């Protein structure tokens, strides 16, 4: 049992207390943007923000979340980090970062957490912040470019524009 907030909404979870946050999000709240990759905090695909800090949802038992505020990829553009999140998403699209895309929710969440604290990270700081996020497609080079580009846009006076309405690949409805 735990009461906490996900993307601003209160959640009163009554399932097993050891259930990792990842599976609460995916199996109970239908928030499928947070991904399962390893189950042991090795790959970062499940990165969410808990109290603003990047957190691996796959090893975070729901019992530890009492009263905490969780933000997922679905909610990150509607939080205090909205400006950073929009800048990151816009840079990701502009730099054509994604490939299979499976790890990218986690990459975006990790990058938002980094740029929220430091809009001009060095390469070493990017390595530190992003090394826990594995991408098997090897998008790292463009992730690095996009982080720098998003940071530069955040330092500018104008807020980053929302991603342009690019043509969409229609997602499959199950």
């Amino acid at each position, binding site marked *: 049992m735990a009461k906490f907030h996900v993307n601003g909404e209160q959640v009163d979870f009554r399932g097993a207390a050891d*259930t990792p946050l990842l599976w609460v999000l995916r199996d109970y709240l239908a928030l499928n943007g947070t991904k399962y990759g390893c189950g042991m905090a090795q790959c970062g695909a499940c990165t969410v923000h808990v109290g603003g800090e990047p957190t691996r949802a796959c090893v975070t038992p729901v019992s530890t979340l009492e009263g905490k505020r969780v933000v997922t990829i679905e909610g990150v553009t509607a939080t205090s980090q909205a400006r950073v999140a929009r800048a990151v998403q816009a840079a990701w699209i502009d730099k054509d970062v*994604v490939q299979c895309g*499976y790890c990218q929710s986690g990459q975006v969440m990790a990058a938002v957490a980094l740029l929220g604290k430091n809009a001009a990270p060095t390469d070493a700081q990017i390595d530190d912040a992003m090394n826990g996020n594995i991408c098997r497609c090897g998008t790292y080079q*463009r992730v690095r470019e996009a982080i720098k580009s998003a940071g530069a846009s955040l330092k500018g006076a104008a807020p980053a524009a929302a991603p342009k309405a690019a043509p969409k690949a229609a997602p499959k409805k199950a």
Partner: protein
Amino acid sequence: MKTVNRRQFLKSSAALGGALVIGFWLPERAGRAFAQPQVQRTAPPNAFLRIGKDGTCTVFVKHLEFGQGVTTSLPMLVAEELGCDWTKVRAELADAGAVYAHTAYGMQMTGGSSSVWNSWDQLRTVGAQARTMLMQAAADQWKVKLADVRVDNKGFVLGPGGKKLAYGQLAEAAAKLPVPEKVELKPAKDFTIIGKPTRRIDSPEKVNGKAMFGLDVQRKDLHTVLVAHPPVFGAKVAKFNADKVKEVPGVTHVVELTSGVAVVARNFWAAKKGRDALQVDWDLGPNANLSTEGLRKQFGDLARTPGKSAKKAGDPAAIAGAARTLVADYEVPFLAHAPMEPLNCTVEMQGDGAEIWVGSQFQGVDHPAAAKALGLDPSKVKLHTMLAGGGFGRRANPVSDYVIEACAIAVKVKVPVKVVWTREDDIKGGFYRPMYVHRVEVALDAGGKLTGWRHAIVGPSIVGGTPFEAMMVKDGIDPTSVEGVADIPYEIPNLDVTLHTVSTGVPVLWWRSVGHSHTGFVVETMIDEAAKAAGKDPVEFRRALLTRHPRLLKVLDLAASKAGWGTALPAGRARGIALVESFGSACAQVAEVSLEKDGPKVHRVVVAFDCGLVVNPLTVEAQLQSAVAFGLSAALHGKITFKDGQVEQSNFHDYPVLRMSEMPKVEVHLVSGGDKPTGVGEPGTPPIAPAVANALFALTGKPIRMLPLDDIKWA
């Protein structure tokens, strides 16, 4: 492509909601490995293109999207001829259907770096046919001749006197017209979309969490299933005790399968806890003593005995009498694909049919296999292709392992099931890139010229024991074991390539770049050893052996020049070069490497690449960065090993993969040329391991003859 003339065009019977729909039907091909039945469905239509009343052009992508960008590059082919507004193009993954068969391989599949080239004529033709029909519809409406109308490449048909109609306004009328048999395709000089750097159209969904992968499928009453697989390949369940499993809240079924014991639950966590509580006694079977040590000895011994001939040229006996010979023994390990999205498959039985959702590279294999496992006629089974979080060959399994397992469970429990493999199940689950041992002997004459090459390869056959064996194995040679050696591009007068095919009990499979993943490493490092023995520069040594290969020479020279080959580097750094032709494309890479206290560090990789006509330069660059990262990951860290029959690795802590801090700066230089595209996804992978190894050889003077580099003691 040869199949063009054999293609029959059929006008789709369905014109959904005024939509113009174009479909193909491909005739049954001789020598097809699998009979993939036509699936009768009402929606979406068996088609490649639908133009809605709002002008939206939806392209049905017959290939799996798993990173390589087909949901952008294939619509580009259609749009180029269609003359539509690119911002109105959408992509949707096509379900399983015979209409979506690969134009060269005869069944629906994604592999062999072939998605773009096999669609090249097909999808441009679709676009041209649709454009012609839209123009005809406008001409009919305006009562003018077809020759008097044209398109503006922004989604409008233009006619005399300033007449103008949008594609969306014409779609319904166009759908009633016959599909033109013959259409003229644009010459390359008129391309406005093909060849232009084009951003992926699937980015927005992939940066906001909305993209739906197989693992994200949701259905009413969907159960999650984890399967306890045998700890040793080939082991069988002797008995199991599920008493404690049933105490886990949420667990609904425990069922025995031929592949293990399945725990079915209301959610993942209950299934996981249930499986953890399961006690299974296994009959370990014939592989209980399997070990990497044992395989190393077995393979090594075999490499010193005569194998089956894969290629013979000149007089191999002359090798023994050469002025100088070098002999080297190589070993590369089993490798897991480890795609980010673990394997999964969702199956729902519905009355007398079933629906399946899976990110499959092999719909043409998986669909009939699933139908068989479900005991249903294939016409009653719908297989929906989901986005896949990587694959690298793992989702192209001739024996459909995880798909038929999910079907077997669905049949037994009669509730909708999503079978999920944990990362541990994936790493330990087999279907690896095989382990190989190579023994190479090269001969040099007194002037340092390469005169002979004897090459023995020992390892498992990827296609052996699968339905592909009959088609691909000739005279006992699996071509995937010897590709890159049997057809070595270097001009060597005396050549002798042999193969020992070994059954190990370990399931094996194609892994990005297949045979080239090991032969590229061996050939290209051996060439550097030979160059050093001859006292020659590695680039010059290769150049002299490639006089009849202008395409390879071009990428070799381009990589060398862009990398500054021969210029000074900071102390402690060296360059290595490698050149591999695979999947119809030529790739040379120069790696700049240093040796740090914790091992090799790759700083920069210069890639020169010729993939014929480039459809989307942004995608090609991304795929080369990706291929370098994938190959480098394996070169540095990748290995699956066995002890007491069991896989010793389990997750990313003991099967490490490349991370951000290890990613070199990759610079891509494309040689444009040719009038057709060739392979892109895989050819960038083989050169990176030998390029890095050759740099280390240059740095230390010590040849690298095994992978991963993590296993080498550098001090």
